[in-house]
């Protein structure tokens, strides 16, 4: 149910433009209102719904301020097993083992955490074809105050590109469900890791 609704929401704009929305304005407003009431409204609720819908049950993470509501939401939902780790490599290792054992997983981290991962992406996820979902809160851009974060951020996309792995930067809440949902499905079907970079445009970023 929820899935159809969310996808419909994504395509809604296109449909409206194509049909010119003639005579259907009030119906559209009604539908919008209905969707606003039933669909997840925050980026983290959208993430939780998409992970659940795709049976991504195991979540490992190293904390990040921006990800805090997502981590809390996941921890509060008995569907998920959520494990805090001491290091992102370890978090990827756990999810990799679980996937080989039949359970899907995602790793949550911030940009600087991602910067510790090229070795394990290149020596575990890619060669062994393990579809780990990496969700990165993007620090170091759009108003960053820490030069170290800003420089680390610039290493992320070149690393992902050099390994030819799928990655998307999410900036808009109305696109988030589609991108996350489809990326998980593609990762599983193509047996490759996928990285979702959550821009401050989506999450609000970290504010001093």
């Amino acid at each position, binding site marked *: 149910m929820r899935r159809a609704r969310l996808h419909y929401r994504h395509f809604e704009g296109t449909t409206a433009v194509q049909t010119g929305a003639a005579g259907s304005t009030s119906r559209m407003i009604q539908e919008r209102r209905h969707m606003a009431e039933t669909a997840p409204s925050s980026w983290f609720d959208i993430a939780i719904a998409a992970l659940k819908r795709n049976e991504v049950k195991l979540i490992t993470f190293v904390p990040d301020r921006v990800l805090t509501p997502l981590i809390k939401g996941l921890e509060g939902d008995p569907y998920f097993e959520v494990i805090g780790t001491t290091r992102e490599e370890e978090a990827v290792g756990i999810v990799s083992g679980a996937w*080989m054992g039949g359970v899907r997983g995602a790793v949550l981290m911030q940009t600087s955490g991602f910067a510790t991962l090229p070795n*394990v992406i290149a020596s575990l996820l890619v060669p062994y074809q393990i579809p780990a979902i990496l969700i990165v809160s993007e620090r170091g851009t759009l108003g960053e105050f820490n030069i170290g974060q800003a420089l680390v951020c610039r290493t992320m996309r070149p690393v992902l590109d050099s390994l030819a792995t799928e990655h998307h930067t999410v900036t808009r809440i109305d696109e988030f469900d589609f991108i996350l949902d489809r990326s998980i499905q593609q990762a599983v079907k193509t047996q490759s890791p996928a990285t979702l970079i959550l821009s401050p445009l989506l999450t609000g970023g970290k504010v001093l």
Partner: protein
Amino acid sequence: MTQTITIGNAPVEIMNRFDLSQRLVRLLKNDEAVVAGIGNTNFDLWAAGRRPQNFYMLGSMGLAFPIALGVAIAQPKRHVIGLEGDGSLLMQLGALATIAAHKAQNLTMIVWDNQSYQITGAQPTATARVTDIVDVARGCGIKQSLWARSPDDFEAQVKKAITGGEKTLIAAKTDKEPPRGQTHRDPVLIRENFMQGLGVRSAKTFAPD
């Protein structure tokens, strides 16, 4: 001549990794999963006898125990054994804290402590001088952490760990003998074989109807 060193006022034999790997494999009766760390650790597991439930790592120093934990979480009814060298474990000591804090008990961690980075030129690790892996593991909260004092003691400890219902770390002091084999290096085959061994994938996909 068996060499010994003293740990905690008691002698510990310096054993052979291949011999202990063989003893371990012989003790596995219930399709236990084994995740073996980079280098000599998985070379000697390979040489000790291939099993569909063995996973051989070709990199990612220090991730054997985290991967083993992941398998243990996904398959709580199966016992999972991680094998790691002292150098690799020292690189990811935080993993011991994570594992200690986790509720899974179907996990045994075995450390081959040859006190060196043997495969890269036998440079000494901190365990050659000051660091005691068992003390570190206990400090992280893995209560069942102990030294195997002889090959027979190793077997007894492994049996107990597999059936005991409590996650356990067993460390063994090992010699500088080279490994007895080399793992076949096709990661996709290794992973697929392992997933079939764990019952996640069917071995019949390419079988004739």
